């Protein structure tokens, strides 16, 4: 982390130096003021070399008062025992790492923060610290970070400070609390100050503190409150004041309620994201199976083609992972859709009205596609990188953090679903598709080229399978067996939702995901899945046409 900071600031420094050089070249006069501030900074650092510990404290205070941009990195290095002076010229340097295993240390210039060669260990003197000085340094660094313009840095600083509080840092937090504008940072400081107040002797402020803590979800807070209502070994309460005990117990109950609430939200969200994956893998099938009545066992392999397309696009665009995902979506749609059209034209069109035969033939196709991928890419899994904007978590509070990739899946599924609905309901192609699926003969009589519509419908379903493959490449291993893992799930979703009904697929998939996720804590992942499957089998016995059965004339065309 620190290395990274150094590297990025290095880069900034380099560019600002370039700028300075340019200025010198253009104006011809160096910037006199800046020069002297740097010199003062270096001189003050130099004083550290021979100062006593009390003197060092004074120097640190002076340094933090100067506002020089390099003070923070110097103090951080000092705190980590990485500040050295070179014996030969008595210059002060930061070392990259002072690990004991290193015989020579790499130096960094404290002013430019650029590499300044290296030196043997015995050519360097460490600038020593003691506990008291370290405390001062910590406070100084915390003060720097607390006044940073970036709320994330401030938040990290508060968290860091909360770990070991003392009078100086408490004073710092109080001072910051008055001027802090960011709500998250302010709440964090509030927690810290309340924890401090709990240790005080004033009853009123302790009760206030407990009331404030009742809304905080950090585990530390709950532990601290729990310690207030503990009994010691002889059965007497550790905390003498009954009012405080009662308040603490209430606060804990409130915290527990909130935590349960947030974990409920989290489960719901996990279920929703799992359900979204199910919807995404099933939605292409909802077209080919639901609208056309074709049992496409190669559906999983079309997804696999989409996933491999992502892999290939990523190979073709090294260094642009984020963009490559966006390129992969249309590419996968075209690849899988093209494969689908070919499949329809060469095989499936001869088998309309014979669903069981279609099942067998497309299963054969799926075997061929799997082996094709094995021949071209080898049987090993390929790794597809996740772009930076999809990794990480969105932290709502201490109890609720949602990962970005799951959120993207939900959003992505909704988008694909919306586009598909729009295509079916708002375009000419959609009109043709619906017309042919409802009454082929009549559609033909009205001049719809049903053959073409069939091919395009199948291509559309296959293309969406490819798009689902792009999403799957971010979730699981990309390998020849990728499709098989999802084919049964996707059929179950379509059958559960009701064949020929996109909304049924949506609701069916989401509810299957949520039920699965709700069962998981009690039954374990595998058993939860088995239970869902069995529940589905039972459900289909009760309602053979799914959640939202097709009615009217179209219903007779399917199955």
């Amino acid at each position, binding site marked *: 982390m620190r290395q990274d900071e150094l590297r990025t600031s290095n880069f900034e420094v380099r560019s600002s130096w370039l700028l300075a050089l340019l200025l010198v070249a253009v104006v011809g006069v160096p910037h006199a003021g800046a020069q002297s501030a740097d010199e003062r900074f270096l001189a003050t650092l130099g004083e550290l070399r021979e100062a006593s510990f009390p003197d060092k404290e004074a120097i640190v205070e002076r340094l933090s008062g100067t506002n020089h941009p390099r003070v923070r990195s110097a103090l951080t290095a000092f705190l980590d025992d990485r500040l050295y002076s070179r014996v030969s010229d008595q210059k002060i340097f930061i070392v990259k790492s002072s690990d004991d295993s290193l015989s020579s240390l790499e130096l960094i210039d404290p002013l430019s923060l650029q590499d300044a060669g290296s030196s043997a260990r015995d050519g360097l003197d460490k600038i020593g610290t003691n506990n008291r000085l370290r405390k001062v340094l910590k406070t100084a660094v915390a003060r720097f970070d607390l006044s940073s313009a970036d709320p994330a840095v401030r938040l990290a600083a508060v968290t860091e400070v909360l770990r070991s509080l003392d009078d100086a840092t408490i004073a710092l937090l109080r001072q910051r609390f008055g001027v802090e504008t960011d709500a998250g940072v302010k709440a964090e400081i509030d927690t810290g100050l309340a924890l401090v107040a709990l240790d005080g002797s004033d009853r009123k402020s302790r009760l206030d503190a407990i009331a404030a803590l009742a809304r905080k979800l950090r585990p530390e807070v709950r532990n601290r409150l729990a310690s207030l209502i503990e009994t010691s070994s002889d059965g007497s309460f550790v905390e003498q004041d009954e009012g405080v005990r009662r308040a603490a117990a209430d606060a804990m109950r409130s915290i527990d309620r909130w935590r349960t609430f947030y974990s409920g939200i989290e489960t719901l969200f996990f279920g929703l994201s799992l359900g979204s994956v199910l919807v995404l893998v099933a939605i292409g099938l909802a077209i080919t199976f639901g609208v056309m009545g074709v049992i496409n066992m190669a559906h999983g392999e079309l997804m696999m083609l989409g996933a491999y397309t992502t892999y290939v696009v990523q190979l073709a665009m090294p260094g642009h992972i984020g963009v490559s995902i966006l390129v992969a979506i249309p590419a996968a749609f075209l690849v899988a859709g093209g494969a689908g059209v070919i499949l329809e034209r060469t095989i499936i069109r001869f088998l309309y009205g014979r669903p069981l035969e279609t099942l067998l033939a497309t299963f054969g196709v799926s*075997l*061929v596609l799997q082996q094709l991928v094995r021949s071209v890419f080898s049987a090993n899994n390929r790794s597809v990188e996740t772009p930076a904007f999809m990794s990480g978590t969105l932290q709502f509070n201490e109890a609720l953090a949602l990962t970005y990739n799951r959120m993207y899946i939900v959003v992505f599924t909704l988008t694909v679903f919306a586009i598909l609905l729009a295509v079916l309901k708002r375009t000419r192609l959609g009109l043709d598709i619906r017309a042919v699926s409802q009454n082929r003969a009549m559609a033909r009589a009205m001049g719809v080229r049903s053959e073409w519509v069939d091919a395009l419908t199948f291509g559309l379903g296959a293309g969406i399978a490819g798009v689902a493959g792009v999403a799957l490449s971010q979730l699981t291993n990309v390998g020849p067996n990728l499709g098989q893992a999802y084919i049964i799930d996707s059929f*179950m979703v379509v*059958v559960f939702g009701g064949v020929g009904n996109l909304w049924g697929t949506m609701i069916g998939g989401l509810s299957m995901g949520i039920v699965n996720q709700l069962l998981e804590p009690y039954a374990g992942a595998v*058993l939860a899945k*088995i239970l869902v499957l069995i529940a589905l089998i039972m459900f*289909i016995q009760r309602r053979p046409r799914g959640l939202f059965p097709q009615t009217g004339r179209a219903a007779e065309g399917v*199955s």
Partner: protein
Amino acid sequence: MNEDRRSIVEDRGGFAFLALLAAAAILVPVLNRAVPAGSPLHLSTYALTLIGKYMCYAMLALAVDLIWGYCGILSLGHAAFFSLGGYAMGMYLMRQIGPRGVYGDPVLPDFMVFLNWKSLPWFWLGFDRFWFALAMMALVPALLALIFGWLAFRSRVTGVYLSIMTQALSYALMLAFFRNDMGFGGNNGFTDFKDLLGFDLHEDGTRVALVSATAVALALSFLACRAIVASRAGRVIRAIRDAESRTRFLGYRVESYKLWIFIFSAVIAGAAGALYVPQVGIINPSEFAPINSIEVVIWVAVGGRGTLYGAAAGAVLVNYAKTFFTGALPEVWLYALGALFVLVTLFLPRGLMGLVPAGVRAE
């Protein structure tokens, strides 16, 4: 329509099939035991096991053909019945190992000792007796078929829906058997069998007897299936295949017919699995994999459904091709199998038996 009501002597295909099986049951022991190892006519243990395996597959194909070819029920979960029969046999064989296991426990199979189990789970009791295991090999698949079929047929789940349900059933069972705490050896299943009814499974003599027994079982299954389809009930079953609603309106209890033929088919599949396990020496949850069930359907489709012996022939042919390809050209096998699926469904809707002129099959 009368084709299936002829006696077996008039049915050339069926007669040839039975003759082949009789030859296998007699020739296999002779060629393996009596012909010296150096002779070109000698049948190696490897070939022997293959023949036994193929005949088990043929039995499974027969079971699928009975319900698919004659009743129109496309089951994509017959591997589940096959595996359940196999597991029942496996449990008996595991109990026979006794104290000869790696851990030497007199009662508990190795994997239970490994999992720190103290006593046999209740569902393992009785499996040390062959007659009990034998009953379970038939009863367990039958019970599953009964429950599933009763629910499915009564609520008139048909066609593709039924196929997907059977597939999901098999998939759920596979996931369940993969779990260690199910008590069926989890991932590894059962293996390292020692003996069957006191005969050492590694002896050629036992293997020969198993192959002959399989040939007999296959012949009996064939005759039983043939008797069913030739009976009055068989005609109702074919009527259900061709026009289910009409049959129902004519007053037949369609659900009952479907249920009983489904159960009978499951029992044959279970018996095939039970014969399969001692010959290959292992049973594990991957036998439940949906792809296995689909492969069975392909054997039947290749051979030609609705002929029974055609299904058996398809099973042997496809599996022979599989053995050949996976040995000689492993890369090509899936291409070949995939192409076979496509070509057969597109161009040979009646399978290879469709190629044989009707006049040759029956005069």
